[in-house]
């Protein structure tokens, strides 16, 4: 495969030429699924920052989960070793992904399951819709799944006259609220109890009008609402947390039991899974089943984890379909540094510790994958089409504080990936932007001491701007974004370099002033 001078492997844009088949790593197809919003991050953030309720809900929820996570992580004296193992296992998976997928396929098939492949979101949705139609059912129950959110499966099924019932409590809140998920683990994290109560009262048929906003009561209302569905549904759609190549075992990690209901009671189970969700062997789950619950809900173990291998006569669905989704993952895999983004086990720890996410929430990112990992994964999956692509702004939605790396159970160096994606964003510019010109000029100045010293002389101007107060409170755009909220000190009368030239570093006492 060819490599450009930037060290980036050649990757195809998602089927813009209409042909799906070139055998080259390919981005997700523009216009399909939910990987790209419509506004740039700073514009979306502008709105969200002013939403008092959102700020309060997110601050409270992320604060709780951060505390819980820190507590259960501190309990394990081998946490770092688990992280190292998790990271290395995923690196190994990426290096052998095609082989491991074939092994998975072989094992699932041998156990009576059927394996399907999907190049992109539309194809995955079509495969699932066709499988549902073949059962004669016009509805499915769904376990929370990021992959189906990514492809926009519910909408695609609705177009085919098939109703999808979300059964995870948070997904149900989002679905009933005609809303979009804002978190990868708790999609309704942006809603508080009283908002949820209102949604239930408005949208849930037959709900008790005396429903209070006590979380227990709300959970019971969801139980009553979905119970009949669970007991009668013929088809379930799920995602997967892990798929084991050497045994063909699938694994779903959950809390409420809605997962068990979907995975056990209907006659047909369809699982849609990104190709990266593999682990090599069954015993490797010993690492991830420790990393995931502690990082995600901050529990030693989540209430329920289910594993199944193909079809088991007399127990659970007798028809099982596994749909393996590319949708841009091949493009991510083709990037040596970037492929680490595929190690993500969707625990959401990086979202919960991110000071940016905490203040703007998930919707500001546009994609179903928000927060630090979303800010890199979304543009990597879609590619960046130019400076006006909303996803071009995502890698900049971070102060690079690094809290995400420390929290990540598989040690994804998200700050490094953010910088790499910023570079991809810059390199997507067909012609130089104002920022490009400014930074290129700065690079020219700063790589020469003579030019740099000359430029520093210009700072004297700043002292005039600052006036008697010694502070600058207003600068022209784009620096107005700084002075909107922060003063800038007047530049010093003498730079460090000038001071050294004058004193040789030895008259500190007098050199301070003037």
């Amino acid at each position, binding site marked *: 495969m060819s490599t450009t001078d930037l060290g980036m492997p050649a990757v195809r844009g998602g089927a813009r030429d209409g042909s799906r088949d070139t055998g080259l790593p390919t981005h997700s197809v523009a216009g399909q699924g939910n990987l790209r919003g419509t506004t740039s991050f700073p514009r979306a953030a502008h709105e969200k920052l002013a939403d008092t309720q959102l700020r309060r809900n997110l601050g409270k929820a992320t604060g709780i989960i951060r505390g819980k996570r820190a507590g259960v992580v501190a309990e394990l004296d081998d946490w770092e070793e688990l992280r190292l193992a998790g990271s290395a296992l995923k690196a190994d998976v990426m290096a052998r992904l095609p082989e491991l997928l074939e092994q998975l396929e072989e094992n699932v098939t041998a156990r009576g399951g059927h394996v399907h492949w999907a190049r992109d979101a539309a194809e995955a949705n079509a495969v699932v819709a066709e499988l549902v139609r073949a059962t004669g059912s016009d509805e499915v129950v769904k376990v929370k799944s990021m992959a189906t959110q990514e492809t926009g499966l519910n909408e695609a099924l609705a177009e085919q006259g098939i109703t999808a019932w979300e059964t995870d409590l948070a997904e149900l809140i989002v679905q009933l609220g005609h809303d979009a998920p804002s978190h990868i683990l708790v999609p309704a994290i942006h809603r508080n109890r009283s908002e949820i109560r209102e949604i239930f009262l408005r949208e849930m048929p037959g709900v008790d009008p005396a429903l209070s906003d006590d979380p227990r009561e709300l959970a019971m209302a969801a139980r009553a609402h979905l119970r009949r569905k669970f007991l009668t549904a013929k088809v379930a759609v799920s995602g997967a947390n892990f798929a084991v190549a050497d045994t063909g075992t699938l694994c779903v990690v959950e809390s409420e039991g809605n997962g068990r209901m979907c995975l056990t009671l209907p006659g047909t189970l369809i699982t849609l899974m990104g190709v990266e969700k593999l682990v090599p062997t069954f015993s490797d789950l010993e690492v991830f089943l420790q990393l995931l619950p502690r990082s995600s809900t901050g529990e030693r173990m989540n209430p329920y984890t289910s594993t199944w291998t193909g079809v088991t006569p007399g127990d659970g669905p007798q028809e099982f379909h596994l749909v393996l989704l590319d949708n841009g993952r091949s493009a991510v895999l083709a990037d040596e540094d970037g492929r680490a983004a595929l190690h993500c086990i969707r625990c959401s720890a990086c979202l919960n510790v991110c000071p940016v996410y905490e203040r703007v929430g998930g919707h500001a990112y546009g994609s179903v994958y928000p927060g630090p990992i979303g800010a890199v994964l979304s543009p990597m999956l879609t590619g960046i089409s130019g400076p006006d692509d909303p996803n071009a702004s995502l890698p900049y939605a971070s102060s690079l504080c690094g809290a995400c790396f420390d929290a990540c159970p598989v040690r994804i160096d998200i700050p490094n990936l953010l910088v790499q994606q910023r570079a991809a964003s810059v390199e997507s510019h067909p012609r130089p932007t104002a920022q490009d010109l400014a930074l290129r000029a700065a690079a020219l100045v700063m790589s020469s001491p003579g030019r740099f010293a000359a430029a520093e002389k210009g700072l004297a101007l700043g002292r005039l701007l600052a006036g008697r107060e010694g502070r600058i409170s207003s600068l022209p755009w784009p620096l107005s974004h700084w002075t909107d909220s922060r003063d800038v000190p007047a530049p010093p009368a003498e730079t460090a370099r000038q001071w050294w030239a004058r004193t040789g570093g030895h008259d*500190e006492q007098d050199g301070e002033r003037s």
Partner: protein
Amino acid sequence: MKIAVMATCLGDAMFPQAVKATVRLLHRLGHEVVFPEGQTCCGQMHVNTGYLREAVPLVRHHVEVFEPVADGGWDAVVAPSGSCTGCVRHQHAVVARRAGDEVLAERAEAVAARTYELSELLVDVLGVTDVGAHYPHRVTYHPTCHSLRMLRVADKPLRLLRAVRGLELVELPDAEVCCGFGGTFAVKNGETSTAMLADKMRNVLGTRAEVCTAGDSSCLMHIGGGLGRLRTGVRTVHLAEILASTEAGRTPAAAGTPGGVRDEPVEAQR
């Protein structure tokens, strides 16, 4: 020891007091200090804004200027900045490699191996925590993200501060949360940056400290810019300035930037 000061572009042009304090402190501890005159900028702003290609000449220039430390000409390079040290240590070689320049990458690694942030130099290399400073003020310390998570300086700055006579150290709540600076983030996402700053300021003000200190002039410019805009009266002072202060020396209150205000008469301008 013969120690070269890496002033950083921001320290050189905007916050020379931190650079001067570093020099004064090292002199006081009996070391020889050099100021490589060719130095400009480590390129961090370019790297972190995504201009990796444009950063290559900056990296090359930095390596050329500071290479004596790799050849034994100097014993160490010190920067009064966690983030610039972090850039040198963790990004220079990456930038060079990405551009296919393996030779430059290896030279950069050799320079980086002997480049230290101030608290690292003092505690790890020079082996001192009590630098003989005197600073009779109520101070709170903000661990900047890059010193905390890129360099892992851990509690070294706090150990240094605890040994300063007269200094009353108050713990900053949620200290490890980013202040919202983030380089060009502060401009490109100015509103989110401000929202983060608001919480940092709330925590600083809650400590009733007179002074907020840190190891990075950049973050202090941001925090101080906010504290100054609101006329809180709280000063931001670089760690180096506190450690350089002595009873005999200049009045400590004059050290530092009172909330984004240059503390010297404009008439002093030549």
